[in-house]
């Protein structure tokens, strides 16, 4: 579950936390695009390193490293499958290019995790909801979204308690073959779903008794504003995309194996 820890918002004040979530999302998207258009190792390494100053500036190093550690398992699988298929495809031989390619694919995944983790670590669910709302998404949807995000840790806690209660009645989750193991989760899932439904009904009643939806046009206590830093980040994001697309089409990207003359 450590991957999810790395995506959980931490309340710290930093220049990155103050940025407008919409602009941050634009930045994440531009990193995403760049990571997809390159399949060589060198640009992906640069892309990985470029984001580290952001992490340091946001002071979320610890959580960020945890999210990378969580991604390590999937990254290993990606590396492994790439190597195996290259190996089989090339007729049971492995060149340095193959290793480089597999590393690049792995690093691409890591870069994606890295940028999403920066986004979610530095954007509070409230800001995210606000950003959706100011992008003219209907308020009901924004509210449902933020509530869902906020209740994830509550549900995780509850799942733990339910697991304990069933284990105390002799349930062994790790016992049996694959199908049996899936069936073992029924006693956990049913109470969890029922309590989630019950909780949502209670929440709806509590909200209605506090006059939710009484007025058609809502006003917000906080309004997102685009500041100078946001304009700067917009500019950076657009520049990154333009430069990278230019490089992709007109500049040959060197590979490490060429360097070493192999």
């Amino acid at each position, binding site marked *: 579950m450590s991957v999810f820890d790395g995506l959980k918002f931490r309340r710290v004040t930093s220049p990155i936390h103050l940025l407008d979530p919409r602009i941050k999302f634009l930045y994440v998207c531009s990193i995403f695009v760049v990571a997809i258009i390159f399949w060589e190792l060198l640009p992906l390494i640069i892309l990985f390193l470029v984001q580290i100053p952001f992490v340091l500036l946001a002071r979320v190093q610890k959580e960020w490293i945890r999210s990378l550690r969580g991604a390590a398992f999937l990254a290993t699988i990606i590396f492994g499958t790439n190597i195996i298929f290259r190996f089989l495809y090339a007729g049971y031989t492995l060149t340095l290019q193959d290793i480089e390619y597999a590393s690049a694919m792995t690093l691409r995944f890591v870069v994606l995790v890295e940028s999403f983790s920066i986004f979610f670590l530095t954007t509070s669910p409230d800001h995210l909801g606000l950003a959706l709302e100011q992008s003219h998404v209907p308020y009901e949807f924004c509210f449902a979204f933020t509530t869902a995000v906020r209740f994830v840790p509550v549900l995780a806690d509850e799942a733990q308690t339910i697991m304990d209660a069933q284990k105390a*009645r002799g349930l062994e989750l790790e016992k049996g073959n694959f199908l049996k193991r899936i069936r073992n989760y029924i006693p956990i899932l049913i109470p969890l779903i029922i309590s989630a439904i019950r909780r949502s009904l209670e929440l709806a009643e509590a909200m209605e008794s506090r006059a939710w939806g009484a007025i058609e046009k809502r006003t917000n206590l906080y309004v997102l504003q685009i500041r100078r830093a946001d304009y700067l980040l917009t500019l950076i994001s657009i520049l990154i995309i333009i430069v990278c697309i230019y490089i992709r089409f007109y500049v040959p990207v060197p590979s490490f194996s060429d360097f070493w003359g192999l």
Partner: protein
Amino acid sequence: MIKVEDVYFTYPSGIEALKGISLTIKDGEFIAIMGQNGAGKTTLIKQFNGLLKPTKGEILVDDVNTKNTSVAKLAQNVGFVFQNPDNQLFCETVEEEVAFALKNFGFKETTLKKRVTWALNLLGLTEYRKTSPFMLSGGERKRVALASVLAWNPKVVVMDEPTIGQDYQQKEKLRQFIIQLNMQGKTVVVVTHDVEFVADCNPRVILMSQGKIVADDIGKRVLTDIDRLTQASIVPPQITQIFMGLTDFGLPVDVIDIYKAREILQKRLGEK
């Protein structure tokens, strides 16, 4: 017998919930664990059936160390009834719910049927045998949860907040039931905030505060020890408070239940 030897426990989040707990629970004892929220009560009882394992120190249940034993194994001796019955109910009928643990423990079909009937009868649930547990009231659901644990007849029964959300009558029935269980030789461990409930049961009371045991004695002594109770954010029973306020009239302070109080007052009033 449960033996807790200098146990420390730290949650993965870094919160140290138990700081050097030592105690022995003999067979057939009736114990109430009290203390404010976050004192470590639930953390302590979850060690008894291995749901949590000590970070330091050890726990022996009938000379078996919990450290290398699975919950499923330990649970056969230590039944654990959770606070909220909704955390465990999932079957279509009450009967299946009660049979769930028995199936997990591998009871034979004939024994299983007998045990289910016995447990349902014990808690007055026979008429709900084929009802869905979700259709029952809060108090009845709690009884189903209790029946589902008592069904395999564990030596020790641990209950987390059994009185919460029950009306007075239910609570009184539960109290009598627990006392009856204890008289039949079961070890009973109850975690509760309810001083009046504890005063009426008069068990051995273990008072906890900030991960440590601050008092461990018979109920009458712990519930009248103002200093220690304050330390654990607990108020003495109402009847004790009355008697403490009337010491000027020569009334004793170590009274916790109404029967004893009535006796003393009757004697007093009869004198005049």
